[in-house]
């Protein structure tokens, strides 16, 4: 009974923790401009993150090593360092976007300007990372993130034209007023939002933090294969309500304030409040994850001791990196740069950096030195190879599409 409870908790935490600022913004934006015609990208992205999370989780459980630990071993000091720099740049950018997202959520709740919230959020965030236990962090923000279910409820309440929505899903082409370049650009953005590199760094490092062993692979798989797709449904709900409310009115979502409006329409102030709680949980939780991921990756690359499972004085360099990242994120946001813009860039650059993360995982998951008998089976390899090709195509297309569409216009 206790085991079932633990598994259920894991699944719920996975669902609630799936969405971050990138998913929030990109899905709402896409819903308002393209309806559900890009829904297939979310599905493809979710399957992809399931495939690679399972692989990196299995690697962590069986070998006791986290992803970035192994990137340098496979790629060597030169290519590995290039990988580290690129991955860190994208993760740090995402970190900044998440902190901005928390500040925006607080602005929506309090009408106090987002820029004023930034230093407060950063300080609280760092104290939480310093003091709060890893498991508590995961569970609290994961469960609170379930508040985003309110989007699915709102969709139901809005009583939309379900046939029309399905029509959009099954017509993968630009809506009137949008071109194929824009369609492609936002396909790349959605894909990048679903497969952000930090997710596998964090997932595998978290597995090592929680001392997974081969016996935990089964539970890990349940969390991934049940939790992530349901989390993906939350993303789709956000896009769907935007499609129902904003698309017919030809209103483009450009600010976080617009994202919960359909919920307010359907469910009033209570719905809005729940949505804001969900925003806060999703962005603050993701800010914790990306902040730790910057530390995990650098520490693992250089072989330093890392993690919250040892006293900070035994992992001083790791904690120094986390502290520095938090401190350095603040001035960037104090320039009053729009966190939404930062988010949009972060998802596209994530798409660009994807091959760097996922190729080593695929290689390592096949190495009997690390995995013993639990190397990839044929299904995992088939899916992994297909996705690797997709990832390379997306990565190559990212910058040209960004230039052609001038950042999605």
């Amino acid at each position, binding site marked *: 009974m206790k085991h079932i409870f633990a598994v259920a908790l894991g699944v719920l935490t996975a669902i609630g923790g799936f969405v971050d600022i990138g998913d929030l913004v990109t899905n709402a934006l896409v819903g308002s401009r393209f309806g559900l015609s890009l829904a297939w990208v979310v599905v493809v992205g979710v399957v992809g993150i399931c495939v690679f999370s399972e692989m990196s989780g299995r690697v962590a459980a069986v070998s006791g090593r986290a992803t970035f630990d192994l990137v340098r*071993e*496979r*790629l*060597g000091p*030169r*290519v590995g360092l290039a990988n580290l720099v690129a991955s860190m740049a994208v993760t740090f950018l995402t970190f900044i976007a998440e902190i901005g997202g928390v500040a925006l959520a607080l602005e929506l709740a309090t009408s106090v300007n987002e820029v004023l919230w930034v230093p407060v959020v950063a300080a609280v965030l760092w104290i939480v990372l310093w003091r709060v236990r890893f498991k508590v962090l995961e569970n609290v923000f994961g469960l609170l993130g379930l508040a985003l279910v309110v989007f699915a409820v709102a969709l139901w309440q809005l009583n939309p034209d379900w046939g029309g929505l399905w029509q959009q899903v099954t017509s993968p082409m630009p809506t009137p007023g949008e071109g194929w370049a824009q369609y492609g650009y936002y396909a790349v953005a959605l894909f990048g939002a679903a497969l952000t590199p930090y997710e596998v760094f964090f997932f595998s490092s978290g597995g090592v933090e929680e001392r997974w062993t081969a016996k935990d692979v089964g539970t890990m798989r349940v969390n991934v294969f049940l939790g992530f797709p349901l989390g993906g449904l939350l993303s789709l709900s956000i896009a769907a309500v935007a499609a129902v409310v904003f698309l017919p009115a030809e209103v483009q979502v450009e600010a976080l304030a617009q994202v919960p409006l359909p919920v307010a329409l359907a469910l009033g102030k209570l719905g809005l409040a729940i949505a804001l709680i969900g925003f806060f949980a999703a962005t603050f939780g993701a800010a914790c994850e990306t902040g730790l991921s910057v530390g995990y990756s650098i520490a693992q690359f250089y072989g330093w001791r890392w993690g919250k499972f040892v006293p900070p004085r035994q992992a001083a360099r790791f904690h120094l990196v986390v502290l520095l990242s938090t401190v350095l994120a603040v001035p960037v946001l104090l320039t009053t740069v729009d966190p939404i813009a930062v988010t949009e860039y972060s998802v596209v650059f994530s798409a660009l950096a994807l091959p760097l993360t996922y*190729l*080593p995982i*695929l*290689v390592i998951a*096949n*190495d*009997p*030195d690390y995995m013993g008998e639990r*190397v*990839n089976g044929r299904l995992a*390899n*088939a899916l*992994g*190879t297909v996705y*690797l090709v997709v990832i390379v195509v997306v990565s190559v297309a990212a910058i040209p599409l960004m230039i052609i569409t001038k950042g999605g216009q």
Partner: protein
Amino acid sequence: MPTERPGTGAVHRLGELMGAVVVLADGTRAGHVNDVRLAGGPGLPDYVVDGFVVGARGEGALLGYDRRAVRGPWLLRVLVRAANRDARYVPWPAVRRIDWEAKVVVVDRLDPLEDERPSA
């Protein structure tokens, strides 16, 4: 310092050998050191350089993918095998001398590359 006489007690780094140019005794270039094979035992201090894996280009052609690996996605195996098709091996007795300063290894011959097995 070139090591023509045995046992100078000099200390070197293995990293200096990686990517070193491999040259035959008559001066023709034979490739670069892609890896250094160590064998011996029982303890690690008893392991010695057993030979060099030599490829056409510098290191990194492997992507860290074990040459002997028989498992893995077909696409990757094909790519790795293609990248490694010209890999050869120089056993220690065939090493004439090592010029550490110039990062050059002078050898008598190159053998085909087999599974890991000490040569001497």
